[in-house]
């Protein structure tokens, strides 16, 4: 008690001594310069990224846009550039999108719920957590090899849509788990406490309060990871998706191709017309991806009506 009083008086005395600024005026100018430089540096990095993107997109649009016609969407691919279209590829991509989502979302979100809400804080859980992080950074071709071994050969699914979608589901699973976990983690403790204090059981707290509150975040992560699956090429080539398909798949057991593979195939041909076709297909793929990203933003806004 006495000590606090002493230090209080000494602070007052210090304040009464002559007023001397602690700001060094000479260094002030230098600091302002650094401040400006750092600002410019940050600005130029974002400009660099944007300019690169714009150049790429403009280049692709210039070379591909003249090939975009109704025929381009309704024709199958062909040896003749004028008759080639992306019907098979776009239908294949849609199938893959739906199937991958159907496999990966329930699995990924449930795994995230288990890890965040139910898993004990033990060594083995920590170990699983670290490895999910590792899997998220694994090169996609490795997933292709896993898919080839397990789905195509061992389970005998052959080069079907089912094998391809399961492979891509494996690929995006770690990303869905991690982003869903982050969304669940971000739900404030006060919300759980409020629910428990009203006599809620654990599952009621998790499914009726925590999950709805985490939904915008979960949806964003899910849509972004599914759009990654739509853009993947390597794992599908490994499991043997075809590059020349003149039919649309009718069931999950059919062979298939997807947009990125069609693009890869056209881009590797020597003729200039096929390169332009590839650019046209890239435009379609980009529009699809942008649409999915906008959907993610829209859903997040919509479900955030009641902000936390």
């Amino acid at each position, binding site marked *: 008690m006495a000590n606090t009083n002493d230090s209080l008086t000494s602070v007052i005395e210090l304040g009464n001594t002559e007023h001397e600024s602690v700001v060094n005026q000479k260094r002030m100018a230098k600091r302002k310069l650094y401040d400006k430089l750092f600002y410019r540096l940050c600005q130029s990095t974002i400009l660099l990224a944007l300019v690169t993107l714009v150049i790429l997109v403009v280049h692709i649009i210039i070379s591909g846009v003249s090939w975009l016609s109704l025929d381009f969407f309704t024709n199958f691919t062909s040896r003749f550039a004028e008759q080639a279209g992306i019907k098979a590829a776009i239908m294949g991509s849609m199938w893959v999108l739906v199937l991958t989502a159907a496999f990966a979302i329930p699995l990924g979100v449930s795994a995230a719920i288990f890890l965040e809400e139910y898993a004990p804080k033990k060594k083995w859980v920590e170990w699983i957590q670290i490895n999910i992080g590792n899997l998220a950074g694994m090169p996609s071709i490795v997933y292709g090899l896993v898919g080839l071994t397990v789905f195509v050969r061992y389970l005998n699914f052959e080069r079907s849509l089912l094998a391809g979608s399961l492979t891509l589901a494996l690929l995006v699973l770690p990303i869905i788990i991690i982003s869903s976990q982050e969304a669940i983690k971000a739900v404030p403790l006060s919300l759980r406490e*409020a629910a*428990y*204090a*009203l*006599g*809620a*059981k654990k599952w009621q707290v998790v499914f009726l309060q925590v999950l709805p509150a985490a939904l915008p975040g979960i949806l964003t992560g899910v849509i972004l990871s599914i759009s990654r699956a739509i853009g993947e090429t390597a794992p599908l080539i490994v499991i043997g998706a075809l590059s020349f398909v003149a039919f649309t798949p009718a069931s999950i057991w059919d062979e298939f191709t997807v947009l990125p593979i069609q693009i890869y195939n056209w881009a590797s041909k020597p003729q200039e017309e096929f390169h332009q076709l590839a650019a046209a297909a890239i435009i379609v793929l980009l529009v699809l991806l942008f649409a999915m990203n906008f959907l993610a933003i829209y859903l997040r806004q919509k479900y955030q009506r009641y*902000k936390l």
Partner: protein
Amino acid sequence: MSASASENSEIILETKDLNVFYGDKQAIHSVNMQVKKGTVAALIGPSGCGKSTFLRSLNRMNDFVSTARVDGKVFYQGKNLYSKKVDPVELRSQIGMVFQKPNPFPKSIYKNITWGPKINGFTGDMDLLVEKSLKRAALWGEVKDRLHDSAFDLSGGQQQRLCIARTIAMNPDVILMDEPCSALDPRSTQAIEDLITELKRRYTIIIVTHNMQQAGRISDETYFFHEGNLIESGDTKQIFTKPSVQMTEDYITGRFG
């Protein structure tokens, strides 16, 4: 205790040698208290003295803190809350809790009230329940025309009264309040204090507060905590006018804390 207090002397909640630990650190040291039905009990003391920890052990909210361990007994309606036979979920529907920061659900005002009763299987008239609960929480007049708006559109004070209404809707015996006014402006604080005085006719209230004037205004009994020990307890008037322990007097007169 004088004989005149006997008209209201049914004990509803009682702790016996209650100790609470966080890991190796002991936060509450062997606290004994008896709360009478229909009264307001105030827990006061400097920050970190364990009053919130103590409060949260009365409806087993400390169960969710993985390092917390409770030793001792809490009797509610003659049963020890920490015996294996007691279901903490059921218990919390009878001993409600209002938190320091208003924490309405991210739902409409209406659904904030009905959520608790619904998950506990209430099948009666929801509209009536909502109206009754909001009226008892002195919020009905302000929100009756916008029951389906988001609870987050309300002011902080209104949100806190909504949280009280939500707790009342469960028709609990006891309401625990953990510094319910600390995040509110003086006017909202006034509204909540009036509400507490009104509510004690129906419910028993145990309130943690760092505001001694508040304890003096609204409580019947006061419990003074310091470093996890219950230093002194008794009739609020007596504690505030002639406390028997020097430390209590020092705290109440503002010499520390």
